[in-house]
């Protein structure tokens, strides 16, 4: 018990870093996902290709390679220098963005064509149709899958410890080696992640219930 009590302040500090990175990255990721999905569906072949290439590149490579590429690879070019937290946020955002874009695209395509026809026949333009008619319906349908991806991204942030970010996992590792109580510390670490993810799912199902599809 003492081990946990002593380690807790450090773990909480790590949790703060994890949540900070997660929240910023997931919001950025969602924006990226929306833009890429719209590019993917835009009536211009080149835009479709660019979007598809981006998604394929992210899906076809491991997260850790993306992280190293962005942190070590881009920094090594010498045009700018990114600190590890920024690199971590960017990687999680881009990675989540690619997966989000596929979810959003599928969501948009799942809406009946008649909705667009009704909206356009009233005189709404393509943007207004997307904004007021298609996306609100699509998001309701996508929420469970979006939550799922957000949980995966949260877990992905634990990999950021390898570039020295003092996130929850990193703090746990330090505590484990200092206290020689690896079993207790890593069990605690697991429980903390579990609780955070549980709360996240609760939040998602609350939102879902609030916006039931009629």
């Amino acid at each position, binding site marked *: 018990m003492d081990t946990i009590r002593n380690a807790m302040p450090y773990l909480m500090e790590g949790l703060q870093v994890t949540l900070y990175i997660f929240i910023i990255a997931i919001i950025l990721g969602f924006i990226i996902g929306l833009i890429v999905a719209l590019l993917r569906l835009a009536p211009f072949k080149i835009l479709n290709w660019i979007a598809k290439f981006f998604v394929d590149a992210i899906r076809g490579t491991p997260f850790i390679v993306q992280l190293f590429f962005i942190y070590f690879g881009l920094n090594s070019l010498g045009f700018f220098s990114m600190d590890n937290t920024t690199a971590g946020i960017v990687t999680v955002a881009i990675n989540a963005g690619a997966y989000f874009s596929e979810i959003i695209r599928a969501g948009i395509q799942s809406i*009946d064509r*008649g*909705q667009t*026809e*009704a*909206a*356009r*026949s*009233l*005189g*709404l*333009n393509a943007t*207004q149709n997307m904004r*007021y*008619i298609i996306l*609100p*319906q699509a998001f*309701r349908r996508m929420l469970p899958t979006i939550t799922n991806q957000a949980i995966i991204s949260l877990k992905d942030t634990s990999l950021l410890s390898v570039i020295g970010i003092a996130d929850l996992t990193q703090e746990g590792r330090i505590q484990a080696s200092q206290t020689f109580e690896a079993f207790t510390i890593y069990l605690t670490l697991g429980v903390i992640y579990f609780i955070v993810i549980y709360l996240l799912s609760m939040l998602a199902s609350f939102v879902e219930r609030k916006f039931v*599809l*009629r």
Partner: protein
Amino acid sequence: MTMIRVENLKKSFGKIEVLKDMSTVIEEKEVVCVIGPSGSGKSTFLRCLNRLEEITGGHVYIEGTDITNPKVDINKVRQDVGMVFQQFNLFPHKSVLENITLAPMKLKKSDKKAITEKAYELLDKVGLREKANAYPGELSGGQKQRVAIARALAMDPKIMLFDEPTSALDPEMVGDVLDVMKQLAVEGMTMVIVTHEMGFAREVGDRVMFIDGGYIVEENVPAELFGNPQHERTKAFLSKVL
């Protein structure tokens, strides 16, 4: 005044030519009922009138504006051309009132209060004021279609297009929807109605247009077209449906 002028309209889907060469003129306040066998191109014809389908050849003029001209602001033209679909296509995430007010709120200059008042008037007209705050999922088919008509009317269109508005309805609901359309006809709305309701076409139509194989085979006042069809294909079709 001529509301719709169709000149040598052609429409292909890929290699398949669905509309081959159609020309007609529809005047203000005219009610034109379009009949014909399944797959003959009735819906496609109607959907070319507001360019919901890209037109492959010929011209369609709405109040004198050639909508096949790519420079035309089609969204502006569509505000004057209401459309009602077989499957209603109400917005399920919006209440009945919001379904009706959404487009005018975004596109019209009048203030919110006036638009809402107008929406309630339209709901009175289709007999559904008490459903203003219901959602489409809570309505019967006939109620949905009447809301869809009110939604189209909220833009103050000069022309209304109907694509088999009663075909997806239970028989006991058909009358309510047809009554609303009759009322519109009496008030002088210009209407093009694709329908299988021959009785309605005969009673309300100023003209009936028979389409087959991508052509307007013949068009005439209902009494003549139903009573004295000129073409073999019209006769064959009518003998099946009457």
